[in-house]
């Protein structure tokens, strides 16, 4: 056998083991969620369930208790949807607009503005939480849906702006100039020319925002208020609420349910994600 083939076999062996290593927890979560508590008590972690049943899933979705409420993670799911939709659409829209304005219209002080924005990207969120609580409370949005959406918009602005600014920096300036000669104004060039050209970047930005906002815990916990707690916070409450025995199967099911949305996003858009990154790399 040629040495090249030996190397190839080594690589695949390593990849197979890595895949097993990372898939093992998922496997345990899935099988545990399908077992009854009696079966779990046998302690056979890797064994397949003897009686396939979805009771734990049903409980996790609609009956599990978070403190005194026993409505499952369902409430959190819809809260998260209500937070994610505006926190994806608005930051992408504003980020694209920022990137477009910075790349093509170059207003006075644009570079300084962009530098400040980038600086914001490097400051840890925790540092800003307390001042931000004060600010959001002062404008009367603390503990509300608009409040948590506003906070997500603010924290996503550096990355969204950077993403679109770099994307538009790769668009030939002549395209913009041609549109100016054709009489296009600020909004028309953005809406009719630049946005339709930005599909790959829009998809990449959507993936980043949806997964980022969905997985957020701290901001949701602090800013959303009791009625809008996102699914991650709800999940934490389900798992930490112990009345009597710890329902491992319900906890596992609730966890899988919570991570379903980001997983689905990656599976559906993985191809686009890679394409968007690659397109940026070739052009940039």
């Amino acid at each position, binding site marked *: 056998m040629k040495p090249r083939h030996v190397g190839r076999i080594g690589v695949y062996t390593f990849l197979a083991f890595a895949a097993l290593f990372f898939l093992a927890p998922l496997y345990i979560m899935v099988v545990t969620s399908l077992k009854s508590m009696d079966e779990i008590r046998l302690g056979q972690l890797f064994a397949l369930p003897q009686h396939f049943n979805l009771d734990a899933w049903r409980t996790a979705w609609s009956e599990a208790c978070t403190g005194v409420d026993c409505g499952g993670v369902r409430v959190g799911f819809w809260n998260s949807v209500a937070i994610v939709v505006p926190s994806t659409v608005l930051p992408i829209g504003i980020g694209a607009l920022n990137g477009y304005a910075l790349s093509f219209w170059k207003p006075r002080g644009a570079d300084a503005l962009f530098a400040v924005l980038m600086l914001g990207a490097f400051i840890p969120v925790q540092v800003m939480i307390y001042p931000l609580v004060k600010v959001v409370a002062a404008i009367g949005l603390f503990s509300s849906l608009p409040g948590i959406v506003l906070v997500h918009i603010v924290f996503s602005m550096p990355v969204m702006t950077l993403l679109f600014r770099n994307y538009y920096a790769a668009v030939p300036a002549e395209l913009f*100039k041609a*549109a100016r*000669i054709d*009489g296009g104004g600020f909004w028309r060039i953005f809406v*009719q020319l630049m946005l*339709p*050209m930005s599909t790959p970047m829009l998809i990449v930005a959507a993936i980043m925002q949806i997964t980022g906002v969905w997985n957020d815990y701290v901001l949701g916990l602090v800013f959303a208020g009791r009625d809008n707690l996102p699914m991650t916070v709800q999940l934490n409450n389900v798992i930490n609420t112990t009345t009597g025995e710890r329902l491992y199967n319900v906890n596992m099911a609730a966890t899988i349910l919570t991570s379903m949305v980001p997983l689905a996003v990656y599976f559906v858009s993985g191809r686009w994600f890679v394409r968007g990154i690659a397109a940026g790399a070739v052009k940039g």
Partner: protein
Amino acid sequence: MSASNPVEWTALAPVAAAAGVAVRDLAIRFGANEVIRGLNLDVAEGEFLVLLGPSGCGKSTLLHSIAGLIDVAAGRIEIGGRDMTEADPSERGIGMVFQNYALYPTMTVERNMSFGLRVAGLPRAEIEARVKRTAALLQLQPLLQRKPAQLSGGQRQRVAIGRALVREAGVFLFDEPLSNLDAKLRSELRRELKLLHQRLGSTMVYVTHDQVEAMTLATRIVVMRAGLIQQVGTPHEVYERPCNRFVAGFLGAPGMNFINGRLSMLSGGTVFDAPGLSVDLHAYAFAGRAPTDQPVVLGIRPEHVQIGPAGEREATVQLVEPMGAHQVVWLSHGPHTLAAVVHDAQVLSMGQSVRFSIDRSRVSLFDLASEQRL
């Protein structure tokens, strides 16, 4: 459409109202860097004016300032007799074609061409009629429903020209439109552009660094260097009587032969003297009064060095470059190396001794220090 272009096309062949351009004391700065200063230029109505110069000479900057895409530091730009210095690009009554086509990638050819007209809010019937007319003129009908990505380079540039023409502007600006095309397409499209200009009679301002494009297309050439206009004239004037050594060397391939020497007065008239070479200049038309005894540079175009048995001077063949239709022969004459263009099928080989003569009536003479034509 802007008020400067009130005439509508009526004939099948579109006729735009050609507008003139006047540039007065123009200055353009990028930061502290003054790219253009004190520039004056007049473009007559219906003229095909070519801005020619090496890269970085400011020719594209000048064109973009006429288009209103670059802010002017000082001076005035008039189009069609109206002050357009501060006007928005779309209000200037111009159409523009860019080197990299700059077609809107998400729109079909038809939408590309109609974009500006839709922005201007023209009636749909008028837009359709104009697009149809322009597409017919440029033979774009089969491509109207395609996206730019489905077109070849030559087709893209024709669409870009169509998008400019459909605006029925008074002035059309071209920024190195053929530079991205291969040699064959370039000469084809060059010919099409010239025919188009003859047919439309519109004012065209065309930027290029390609002297062949400049010579073939222009009614007048503007040669620029370092933000300054060196010479303005017909292709013939600029080629035959270059006003300084830079213009003389920039035009022509292979470049003009330059020989340093001195002028001296003899009884018969002025004579150019260099080591091993003296040229009688009694037939030379001096720009001003004939100077006496000063260091000068003699310029001889390669086609004015004639190789033949009747030649009055002798040289050794250093190198032969066959070009197909002609050959370029490099001659050693004393300490000088001269390029000569030979159009007949003489067989010349390296090291061969040949006779040649210089067409004395068509040489150029420049002052050594100022490099200005004498």
